[in-house]
């Protein structure tokens, strides 16, 4: 704690200069200007929210502050003095700690080791000091961590706490959190918000990146909006104080997209559900393991034109369910029936041929092959099939044309179809995968977190497409951690917890009451228990 107090003393006398200043910073990448002449000031005692659509340049800004990249033009200033952050070490020395969007912990090390990672190699780790300081953090920020646990075995939320703890242990002046809430439950996000508040109260500056506008409003003191690399506008503390949440969001959306959002929360979709059962799952079970959740007694039905939502905190078997349905995960017991055909033992390719599609949430890991051009990636699941292959021989012109059509139809932002897909932003990769799944004779489509990490505009477009799919008489399973999304799209919502179905609810548009019931189920409460209680 004492460390944090002295930190405050060290702060520059001139608050106008801010802790960090970005002065006309520009960063080019092949073919794009990622950051274009941006000037920003980060003030101590403020949560500074960065907003912007996919590819707007937020991560690039973070990269420059974290010492991963250097600006091509313009310069950074620390406490008003021009400075270079040429490496992560320089950034850390300047008191900037970054919690990246993707975990930057070593999974095989213990929590303690991750906390002291980066210490000089010749120093003996001083356990007592760390323990003492962790005690202080627990008091001040409710951060409590098992020091000797293996990091990889902890939940994502706990892992994020380690990163935050690490930032605090370093006596930082600035803490950067890049899309830190996308992995968290609503409660987790709230806790993080409270922590950020405490941090700024103790005199630090926080930079917070999110795609969720209400979070920006609730947690932020100052909001900067980036658009295609440029600073589109800023809402300072004084201005924010005068706005209600809705007003603020309207204004932000205006800045981000240059148009009106069309009314805050998404409207609930008109249902198109029929009686025809397309997918019938009975008593499905899969083997669990040390780091995978097993499924128990999963039974569900999807009808033509129906969107079946699956809610649950990340890691409660949703992914396993999607994989078991797609044929990617062996089924221990139970039966899967697709339009009267039992497909329990069919493999991925056979199920796909019968019209079962699966959009993975792991875009880079399994959804695409980063080094391959976009064109190959658009036909990855149809290798050998006409019209792209004839008797096993590739027809490059056909594939290229198909890729160009897909790029155009889904408005993928890319130089051309020969670009390796790994170079696109997450959102644009997602569009290509979406396009790929909708190709041909889909009957039932399983979406796993289809809008995760997308910006508002793309989220809206994607949700629209999912609705269209259902309207076209196909069955949809929509797995999402975002309750708003489920409540906007789904006809029924299944809640999973611990690899089981905890309950199935009709989406009656019940608003807060429904949200609350889902929340209870997500926490593991059984429907019946609640009824008897």
């Amino acid at each position, binding site marked *: 704690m004492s460390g944090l107090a002295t930190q405050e003393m060290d702060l520059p006398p001139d608050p106008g200069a801010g802790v960090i200043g970005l002065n006309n910073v520009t960063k080019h990448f092949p073919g794009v200007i990622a950051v274009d002449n941006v000037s920003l000031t980060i003030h101590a005692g403020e949560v500074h929210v960065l907003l912007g659509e996919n590819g707007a340049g937020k991560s690039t800004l973070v*990269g420059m502050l*974290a010492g*991963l*990249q250097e600006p091509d033009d313009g310069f950074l200033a620390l406490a008003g003095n021009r400075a270079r952050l040429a*490496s*992560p*070490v320089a950034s*850390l020395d300047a008191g900037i700690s*970054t919690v*990246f969007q993707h*975990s*930057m*912990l*070593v*999974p*095989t*090390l213990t929590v303690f*080791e*991750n906390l*002291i*990672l*980066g*210490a*000089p*190699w*010749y*120093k*003996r*780790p001083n356990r007592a000091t760390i323990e003492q300081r962790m005690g202080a953090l627990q008091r001040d920020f409710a951060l409590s961590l098992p020091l000797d646990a293996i990091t990889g075995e902890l939940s994502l939320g706990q892992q994020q706490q380690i990163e935050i703890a*690490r930032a605090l242990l370093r006596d930082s002046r600035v803490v950067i959190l890049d899309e830190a809430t996308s992995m968290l439950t609503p409660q987790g996000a709230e806790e993080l918000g409270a922590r950020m508040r405490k941090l700024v109260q103790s005199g630090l500056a926080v930079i917070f990146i999110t795609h969720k506008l209400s979070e920006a409003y609730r947690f932020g003191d100052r909001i900067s909006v980036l658009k295609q690399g440029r600073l589109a506008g800023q809402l300072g503390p004084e201005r924010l104080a005068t706005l209600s949440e809705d007003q603020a969001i309207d204004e932000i959306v205006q800045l981000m997209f240059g148009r009106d959002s069309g009314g805050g929360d998404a409207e609930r979709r008109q249902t198109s559900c029929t009686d025809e059962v397309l997918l019938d799952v009975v008593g499905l079970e899969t083997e669990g393991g040390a780091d995978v959740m097993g499924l128990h007694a999963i039974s569900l039905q999807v009808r033509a034109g129906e969107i079946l939502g699956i809610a649950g905190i990340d890691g409660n078997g949703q992914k396993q369910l999607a994989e078991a349905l797609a044929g990617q995960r062996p089924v221990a017991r139970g039966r899967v029936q697709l339009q009267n055909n039992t497909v329990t033992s069919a493999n991925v390719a056979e199920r796909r041929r019968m019209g079962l599609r699966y959009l993975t949430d792991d875009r880079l890991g399994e959804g695409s092959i*980063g080094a391959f051009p976009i064109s190959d990636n658009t036909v990855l699941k149809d290798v050998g099939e006409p019209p792209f292959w004839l008797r096993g021989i590739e027809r490059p012109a056909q594939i290229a044309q198909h890729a160009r059509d897909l790029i155009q139809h889904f408005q993928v932002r890319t130089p051309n179809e020969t670009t390796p897909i*790994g170079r696109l932003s997450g959102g644009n990769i997602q569009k290509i995968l979406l396009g790929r799944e909708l190709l041909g004779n889909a009957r039932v489509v399983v979406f796993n977190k289809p809008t995760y990490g997308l910006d508002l505009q793309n989220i809206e477009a994607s949700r629209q497409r999912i609705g269209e799919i259902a309207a076209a008489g196909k069955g949809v399973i929509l797995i999402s951690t975002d309750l708003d999304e489920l409540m906007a799209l789904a006809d029924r919502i299944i809640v999973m917890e611990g690899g089981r179905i905890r309950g199935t609810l009709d989406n009656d548009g019940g608003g807060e009451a429904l949200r609350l019931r889902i929340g209870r189920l997500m926490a593991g409460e059984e429907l019946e228990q609640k009824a008897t209680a």
Partner: protein
Amino acid sequence: MEALLTEAFLSSLLTGAIVAAIPMLLAGLGEQMSEKAGVLNIGIEGMMLMGAYLGFFVAFQFDSIWLGFLGGIVGGMLVAVLMAVLCVRLGLNQIVIGIGLTLGVEGLTALLHHFQFSRTYPRLPAPVRADLPLLSDIPVIGPSIFSRHPIVYIALLSVVVLAYLYRRTNLGMTLRAAGESPAALDVAGGNVEGVRVFSVLFTGAMAGLGGAYLANVGAGLFIPFMTGGAGFIGIVLAMLARGRPLWVLIGALIFGAALSLTTALQVAGSNIPTDVIQMLPFAAVMLVLMVFGRKARLPAALGISYERGAR
């Protein structure tokens, strides 16, 4: 075959096992550090060979076997510097560069040997033995294990030192982080390149020492291609040891024993054809791989070069 289990058989088995195990142990320990830090150091065979050559050259020129060991270490590290520059700094493919360096060193040392020693075949004096007091008097075990060249004890000691280093020090932690998640180490302020370069140089030093042992203690002179795959065996030992120096030692001893068994069985008058016996050690490794192979978890970033900010 009745003659198995005689004192002669056991002595020759143990003696041979230790003598054969030491170079592989040194190589395996060296390789282990590289692998921990995420560098698959296939060039280790070349480092050993260079160590053997320079180790012998220096020992011969300065008439000092100890200077020779130093020379071996330097020789191994010279090749390691190339490996570090090409694979760690410049991020070139580790397997291909490793093989390339090994081939290059084979050619270079054969060339140098040809012009320097191939007419005269100078040899070093027989190396001294260090008898460990008391221990060396135990029958069978004593002369086999406790009456060897000091390098043998140094190699055994380094197992303990390394085990301590990996478990208890920041360096050990940094090494593991570099092999498991270099990006995480980098953003935490660690020096990925530095620690990887260090590990590669250490591998060079250990491999060079192993090579120098082969030349100076093992043979008393340098012969082209004399390492004959000991470095590759070191790679296998390191991969099977799951990061533990003790397991490298155990592996090296088992491998040494298998090699030595080929001699011991022959000495015992076994009638199995020699060529078949000689397949034993390799068959043993394959067996181990079949049984335990799936458990040989390797560092996640092994063999992958790290470039800041790239994905």
